[in-house]
């Protein structure tokens, strides 16, 4: 019998596509329904932040960091500001530290809500997206009150934060925490037990522990494989060592585990916010910093636990007020490398589920 002639088809997913979470292109080679090769093409959102930073004073770089992982601007701001403070050995006032923790953890909650909504939307369920954005709207409104912006906050400064919380803001945060805890039950009722959802994500896109370490993954992708590594506990920064929270680690490394860790991390972040609200005291929000911020000559790297993984800033300084080199270690960029390995051998329908679970934000992938 003659061999059946089969052709491989090359398919282009993106750069404009509803499920690729941004301008991202995936060139997929298909053999029937099976993926034979997958080549992610990035760089559509590359804006040259690192090059621009070489001509900007440190405080002027902060708005640029907002736009990296635009869903968690507070965390990006903090990564830069913390590295500078670490390099200069600057003291940050206590109130500023607690405000920072509150906004960072709230931003983490908002970012995880976007993940939940958009992941379910990719899988076909339209409603969780709107419910998730409803809760996120409250958080974004809180941020609007404190710093004037809804997405790109530009809130942190070297030595503290720019604006103090307005009257009643802390009480609103407390109310939100209680409200969100109740809502988590609704999300679990709607999504977590749904047979169709479980069938689509359970056992899909499994990452092994060796692969996770070898591919330098971080954040939720790493913890879904069973490795307990959270920078807030392992390499503590700021005042995180004062808070009592759990690091959520899963076992199987599949997409369902990643979804669960996102949901559980929302609850842990709410715990941290509550503890911070209890401990916060009055005081200044910006410490004593020199007018012109000069990082002493040398090189410094600090990584924080961003909502997608390890967000790091590497500063090489020659003592001037502008960095000689600013390198951003972007978690989505590094995590995305495993996509090729995960997709080969899968069928097309699982591609969307796997890509969604890696949880990338294109601003961060391209920098």
């Amino acid at each position, binding site marked *: 019998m003659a061999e059946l002639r089969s052709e491989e088809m090359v398919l282009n997913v993106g750069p404009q596509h509803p499920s690729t979470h941004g301008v991202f292109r995936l060139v997929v080679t298909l053999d029937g329904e099976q993926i034979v090769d997958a080549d992610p093409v*990035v*760089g559509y959102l*590359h804006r*040259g932040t*690192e*090059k621009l930073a070489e001509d900007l004073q440190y405080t002027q770089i902060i708005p640029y960091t907002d736009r990296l992982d635009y869903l968690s601007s507070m965390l990006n701001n903090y990564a830069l500001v913390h590295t500078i403070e*670490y*390099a*200069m*050995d600057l003291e940050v006032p206590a109130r500023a530290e607690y405000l920072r923790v509150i906004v960072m953890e709230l931003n983490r909650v908002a970012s995880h809500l976007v993940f939940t909504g958009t992941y379910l939307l990719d899988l076909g369920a339209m409603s969780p997206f709107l419910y998730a954005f409803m809760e996120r709207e409250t958080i974004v409104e809180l941020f609007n009150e404190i710093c004037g912006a809804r997405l790109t906050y530009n809130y942190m400064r070297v030595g503290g934060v720019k604006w103090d919380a307005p009257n009643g803001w802390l009480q609103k945060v407390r109310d939100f925490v209680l409200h969100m805890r109740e809502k988590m039950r609704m999300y679990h009722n709607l999504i977590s037990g749904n047979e169709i959802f479980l069938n689509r994500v359970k056992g899909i896109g499994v990452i092994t522990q060796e*692969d996770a*370490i*070898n*591919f*330098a*993954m*971080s954040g939720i992708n790493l913890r879904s494989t069973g490795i307990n*590594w959270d920078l807030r506990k*392992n*390499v503590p920064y700021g005042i995180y060592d004062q808070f009592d929270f759990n690091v959520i680690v899963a076992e199987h490394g599949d997409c369902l585990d990643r979804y669960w860790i996102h949901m559980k991390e929302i609850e842990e972040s709410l715990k941290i916010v509550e503890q911070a609200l209890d401990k916060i005291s009055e005081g200044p929000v910006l410490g*004593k910093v*020199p*007018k*012109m911020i*000069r990082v*002493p*000559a*040398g*090189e*410094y*790297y600090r*990584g924080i636990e961003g909502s997608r993984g*390890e967000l*790091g800033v*590497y500063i*090489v300084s020659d*003592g001037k007020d502008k960095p*000689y*080199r600013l*390198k951003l*270690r972007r978690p989505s*960029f*590094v995590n*995305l*490398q495993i996509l090729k390995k995960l997709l080969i051998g899968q069928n097309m329908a699982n591609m969307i589920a796997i890509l969604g679970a890696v949880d990338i934000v294109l601003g961060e992938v*391209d*920098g």
Partner: protein
Amino acid sequence: MSTEDNNTSDTVKATPTASAAAKPAAKPAKAALPPDPRVVAALANGETIKTALNQKLGVPIVVEVSASKAVPILIIDKAYWVQAVQFLRDDALQSYDYLRMFSGTDYPNYIEIAIHLVSRQHNTALYVKTRTERDLAVVPSLTGLFQGVNWEEREVYDLLGVHFEGHPDLRRIMMWEGWKGYPLRKDYSPFEDLDERGGNV
């Protein structure tokens, strides 16, 4: 690569509201700054690792040892780049198996590749760097040891022009194929020779 923190005097001088009492206190501080104990410990650690490395590989491959706050920095001869990192990853006493950061920097005379390794087992950290010339910059690739540096090396290739030997798929990642020039280099001007470079498409 000196990491002594000698900026305290700048800090005090720059603050306009510094009281008169603060100024005389600054002067004795300027005189003798005790070395940062973290840096001293880091340098000692670095020396230990350097000895271990040199011993293992037989050749003095570590060019320099310095420190950034509490983390030792080793600068390694690029010919032994892969072997050194492999030793650091696989040796039981070192076991630096998690790579946190990979970066390239353009200096006036050389391009430097820096990686930040972490040993989860021993809870220690280490920077390892290597240098290469600016023209014909070639560095052996670490993709055989850590698959997670694949795209990082591509980015350094794209933006700094360092060719990584042994990389399975070295092509531009941020800029598109056909772009000429290496944007992150210090002598790159975005406005010259735009057509030649592939801009103005």
